[in-house]
């Protein structure tokens, strides 16, 4: 007979895991879903930021979640510059489909190889004061290693939603996803807006990096674990839907952990990706496809 405590714990730990997936996916949801830039180097950028955060934390003793907030603007500017390069060489000439994809694939390899050459092949990690501690609410265990990154993830995603809805630039980003030419009628340069949005997506990768390095150690190739998942989450949500990305990420986490508990961990990816196939069969546009922020 199934133990209800196990099931409840699986759901709760799945939600915490889903929050990590959500912050990792949100940047790609902005670049891929809203800007139509298939940045498959996004997980590699997340790992790059994890290395930077680990280095800064070991020097300064700062908390990795706080450090992630501090380095996010720098990564944002990096993202703006990267988009300018991408736009100049690929998007402007209409070669972004395959050549743009190859550009980001190459960037991913470049980041991984550079990390190995600079930092070596060993894992990087940050020791936190709350690592190993667990908050127990009755029979439900909440490891702080998962809980605090989850809270950080939700706070940043919430701030992103507010910014997109309330600020002029945020609404321009949402608008550029729907009709970039229409922005010109408002005297807004869509390329500048897209550069800002891409910068935000890379900044989100840096925030996700802070969460990741708290959850687990990383090595140069840790991004591989996330590529399939975050692409699946963005597609499951429906391209361009940021609230949908949050819901899909939480769903992914819960299903993975429930499957692991009920049928064994080997079934986790099969069940989660099976859900993706089932949803796409019924709703090719994804669960929230068509809805924009």
């Amino acid at each position, binding site marked *: 007979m199934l133990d209800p405590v196990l099931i409840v714990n699986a759901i709760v730990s799945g939600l915490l895991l889903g929050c990590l997936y959500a912050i990792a996916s949100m940047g790609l949801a902005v670049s891929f879903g809203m800007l139509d830039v298939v940045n498959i180097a996004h997980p590699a950028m997340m790992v790059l930021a994890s290395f930077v955060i680990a280095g800064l934390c070991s020097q300064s003793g700062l908390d990795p979640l706080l450090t992630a907030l501090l380095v996010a603007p720098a990564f944002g500017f990096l993202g703006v510059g990267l988009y300018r390069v991408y736009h100049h060489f690929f998007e402007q000439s209409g070669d972004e489909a395959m050549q743009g994809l190859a550009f980001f694939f190459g960037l991913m390899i470049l980041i991984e190889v550079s990390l190995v050459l600079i930092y070596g*092949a*060993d*894992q990087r990690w940050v020791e936190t004061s709350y690592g190993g501690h667990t908050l127990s609410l009755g029979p439900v265990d909440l490891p702080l290693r998962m809980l605090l990154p989850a809270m950080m993830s939700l706070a940043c995603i919430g701030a992103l939603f507010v910014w997109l809805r309330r600020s002029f630039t945020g609404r321009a980003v949402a608008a550029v996803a729907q009709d970039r030419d229409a922005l010109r009628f408002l005297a807004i340069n869509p390329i500048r807006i897209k550069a800002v949005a891409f910068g935000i997506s890379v900044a989100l990768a840096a925030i996700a990096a802070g969460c990741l390095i708290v959850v*687990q150690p990383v090595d140069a190739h840790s991004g591989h674990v996330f590529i399939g998942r975050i692409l699946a989450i963005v597609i499951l949500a429906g391209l361009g839907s940021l609230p949908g990305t949050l819901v899909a990420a939480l769903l992914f986490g819960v299903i993975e952990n429930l499957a692991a508990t009920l049928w064994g961990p080997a079934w986790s990816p099969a069940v989660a990706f099976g859900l993706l196939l089932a949803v796409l069969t019924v709703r090719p546009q994804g669960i929230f496809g068509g809805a924009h922020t």
Partner: protein
Amino acid sequence: MNREMTRRSFGLLATAAVASFAGKKSLAQPASGEPIRIGFSTPLSGGLAGNGRSALLAQQVWGDDINARGGLLGRPVKLVYYDDQSNGASVPGIYTKLLDVDKVDLVISSYGTALIAPAMPVIVRHGMAFISLLGSGTNEMFKYGRAANISPVGRKMNEDFAKGFFEVAKALDPAPTTVAIAGLDSDFSNRAMESARTQAKLRGIKVVYDRAYPPSTVDFSPIVRAIQSATPDLVFFASYPPDSVGLLKAVRELKLTAKMLGGGMVGPQVTAIKAQLGAQLNNLVCWDVYAPEPTMDFAGTTAFLDRYRAVAEAKGAETLGLYAPPLAYAQMQVLEQAVTRAGSLDQAAIGAELHRDSFPTIIGELRFDETGEWVEERNVYVQYQGIVGNDLQQFKKPGVQVILYPPQYKSGVLRPGFPAA
């Protein structure tokens, strides 16, 4: 001429080898002539790079040693290697290039089963003698007669690998009656888990949890919770480095307890993970290949580790060097001795020498059966004891990784229970 000189001076070379470990100057003539080129692929990037890079450093230390001792067959030795990026698909192409384009004289393997097996068809087709590093049953299907494997798992990994873990558990009072088995869905881990099932069945121990997890697993808490609800006496994990850390973190956070916990975990052997987990490793009973205990202090081991660590410190690589490096150095020693005994670079003669006699190395005397596996398995099970904090220096000293199995290397007694009190 070189051939005759080498035969006559075999004893002298062996003496010189020992002398070089002691830091004395070589007695041999300087190497001369065209270098003997030894080709191999190795993971310098990708998931296995940590072990690949440290193994390469050990192989380079051997290269320096042998050239200082007068070379191989009187000729200098040159290592020719390419990064296989931990990707098995790259390996056949690399060995084809090494043999057909670079025309190397000798070949050795990359690190681990996943990177050794893809090389085998190329090696067999070219009839090369082949000494592999830390494979598990890679020659089972090929049954190639010119192969030797530097791995303590032995010929019957599926049966023997976990034997030490269960032998150690016999010391528990009361005797354990249940075991939980969980491991990564990969060749090595699957074999380790199969061995745990076999050993449990042989001893009448009931398996109460038995699951494999995929390599992409991020959250290990569902596995640990399920094990917790099954309340096993023993917990046997068969994991790789990233998941070993994830599992042990989840064990700590969810307060899983057992009479004995550990198993075939790959990870705690590596410097970075020792530094990361520190005192959390206390009482873990874990598979290993070598531990710096007095019972495993073979001729040349300490001298090698001193030299390796000096190089590794300078290059920022795996600094303790207790896992792959001693085996990689032994791999080269076996190659050196096989070539020297054959007296030439004739691959059939070298292949025959691999199975003829035993090989004294820095990890002890090795003898290979007809499939190239060790005649006797030597899966070492250590228990981490008395670790304080995360200082790496303590792992260089005896008494921290206490050997509990095999009996001939036993260096301490089991401390029951996990986590440590």
